[in-house]
């Protein structure tokens, strides 16, 4: 590797002035030894992605150290994929010391199931599946009816039941603050009462990098290690780290139809209504969730770099473009979160 090249961790600079500058900047005359990497002086700078990575790893380690039974909520979407990679990094060469849980509506894309199972096997960790279908079969939940039926709403109860059944006291989620306005006010450690409820008016102040995870039995904390990441950061990190994501995130031909200004995929889980005309278009998914309420976007982005270019230039937020669940009302996300949603 040549000098002056940007590598994963350090920004390199081959100049002698750095040492003097550092000593000056720190207001000291101490002999300040330079760091070397392949013979080059390192100037003690971290890229924004490495800064975010380090912050997330710190959070994940804090949780593993302080909670009895953490679990990582894994959906197979890009954010939970990055979160899982960060957990892998946090404990390497040891295994991730907690299981992952998938709240499965049963209406997910095939590619996502395949990816999930392969990744969990690779990491040698336990997968817990909390199934919405099981909740319906056992009579705990009732399936919505009609062509607009979605299991998205039903996830909340299945999620809370799953956490309770296994006694999980901390649940990592991949939510980001840039996604939605209710989320922009949520803490990294988000306290949930015994009903799994979030009370936005009564959140614990969160200062420095000191997190308060104390809770009583039956209560739990949602942990959001990706709070400060944006959609673009996620994609830049996927590119930089060479992380694989399910191929439905890249442009492909698919049969879709328009509903409420969104492109929904034709699947066995969605009923096409009168006047809706399915046609084959070149699309990709910006978010991956329940097939009944996750829309595709028209796109020619077939590589990570093309996706980054597209995300950099887009004028619509990812949830605005693709999530019917947020469109129910102005505060749809807040209302669902209050009830215990992700």
């Amino acid at each position, binding site marked *: 590797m040549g000098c002056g090249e940007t590598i994963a961790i350090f920004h390199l600079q081959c100049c002698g002035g750095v040492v003097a500058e550092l000593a000056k900047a720190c207001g000291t005359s101490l002999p300040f030894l330079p760091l070397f990497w392949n013979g080059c002086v390192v100037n003690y700078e971290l890229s924004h992605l490495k800064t975010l990575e380090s912050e997330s790893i710190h959070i994940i380690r804090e949780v593993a150290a302080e909670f009895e039974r953490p679990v990582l909520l894994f959906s197979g979407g890009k954010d939970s994929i990055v979160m899982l990679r960060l957990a892998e990094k946090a404990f390497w060469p040891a295994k991730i010391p907690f299981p992952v849980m998938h709240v499965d509506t049963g209406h997910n894309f095939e590619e996502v199931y395949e990816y999930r199972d392969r990744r969990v096997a690779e990491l040698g960790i336990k997968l817990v599946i909390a199934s919405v279908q099981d909740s319906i079969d056992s009579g705990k939940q009732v399936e919505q009816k009609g062509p607009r039926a979605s299991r998205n709403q039903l996830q909340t109860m299945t999620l809370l039941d799953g956490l309770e059944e296994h006694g999980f006291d901390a649940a990592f989620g991949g939510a980001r603050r840039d996604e939605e306005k209710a989320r922009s006010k949520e803490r990294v450690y988000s306290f949930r009462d015994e009903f799994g409820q979030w009370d936005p008016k009564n959140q614990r102040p969160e200062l420095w990098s000191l997190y308060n995870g104390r809770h009583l039995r039956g209560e739990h904390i949602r942990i959001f290690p990706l709070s400060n990441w944006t959609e673009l950061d996620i994609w830049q990190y996927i590119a930089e780290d060479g992380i694989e994501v399910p191929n439905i995130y890249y442009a492909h031909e698919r049969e879709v139809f328009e509903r409420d200004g969104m492109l929904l995929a034709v699947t066995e889980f969605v009923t096409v209504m009168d006047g809706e005309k399915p046609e084959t278009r070149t699309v990709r998914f910006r978010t991956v969730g329940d097939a009944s309420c996750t829309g595709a976007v028209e796109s020619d982005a077939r590589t990570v770099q093309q996706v980054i270019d597209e995300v950099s230039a887009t*004028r619509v937020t990812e949830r605005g473009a693709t999530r019917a669940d947020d469109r129910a009302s102005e505060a749809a996300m807040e209302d669902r979160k209050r009830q215990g949603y992700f």
Partner: protein
Amino acid sequence: MSELLRFATAGSVDDGKSTLIGRLLFDSKSIFEDQMTSVADASERMGLDAPNLALLTDGLRAEREQGITIDVAYRYFATPKRKFIIADTPGHVQYTRNMVTGASTADLAIVLIDARKGVLEQSRRHAFIASLLRIPHLVIAVNKMDLVDYSEDRFNEIVEEFGSFAAKLDISDLTFIPLSALNGDNVVARSEHMTWFEGSSLLHHLETVHIASDRNLIDARFPVQCVLRPQTEEFHDYRGYAGRVASGVFRSGDEVMVLPSGFTTKIKRIDTFDGEVDGAFAPMSVTLLLEDEIDISRGDMICRPQNQPTSAQDIDAMVCWLADETVLSAGSKLSIKHTTRTARAIVKNLKYRLDINSLHRDESAETLQLNEMGRVSIRTTLPLFFDEYRRSRETGSFILIDEATNATVGAGMILGET
């Protein structure tokens, strides 16, 4: 390579704070069309003439119903040079609690002043909190310059008035920028209306202010988060200490000391998932491997034998009280969290309460209530390994937790051993 800059904004809606943030986001193309549509719709329903950009962040039901901002909102934008995280702190009664929260990790704070009104009590309070929290860079944005005819004299009056107050504070880098958030003067581009101003626009300042040397690279401190023992065939005898460098630099081969045991050894290797590194500096998350087997666990601190933090159980600190249901007074028993160490603490005494408007010290005060600050002496059940807050935010800060409600009730900045 783009850097990360965290900044906090302080001021009320009247100062044009939302307009300024809206302008920064809008001009850096970080507001999306669907967000603008939703803000426009909501503004229209509320009977407003123009879209209220505050609605971009005031998304909670209660906020929209009451027209107030409840909590710190985080916003994100990026330019080719830097990625920015804005902690947008509201300006009403809960102010101190919110600003302390938003400011605790900020590299820079922007305090807005209305050019017509000049330096108000609120502006002084914001600047004082910024200095107390040791935010390295402070920007005084003198807004609404369009309403004072872009007057250089008016701007200079404010600079002078604020400057004499700021001289009493501990502020290392103070910058004044005259601007009009509404018209965009000096926000992204330099204003044609204020050619007399020789400084840079706000965005240019945010992009170029030198933050790399704000970190403490002298005092090597590594609070241990957890011990990694894979116990696999490949890594049979592996024992790594995982943590994030709080300050300073660690290199393989360095002689290090472990607190509280006081044992010394050498760093054998510094590991990350992406490979071994030659050195680690704040705020890198790494794993240290040591030459000798020493009993080390979470809450221990790795440092250099010639440069150790203070180890003490009797500590003086400035404490900001964050709870509305309880007060701090002599005898209060609390849980304390400092770096990765948790202990119990008892308040020995409240030396004085600080009036954050007048900076007057009230030594007769017996309690700290919500949003109040004061100098407090505490005693902890375990020694803490700390540096003065002014030297290191990471090893100089702590939080206090109510053991009955589990709420975070206090934020402390360490002054030193009692």
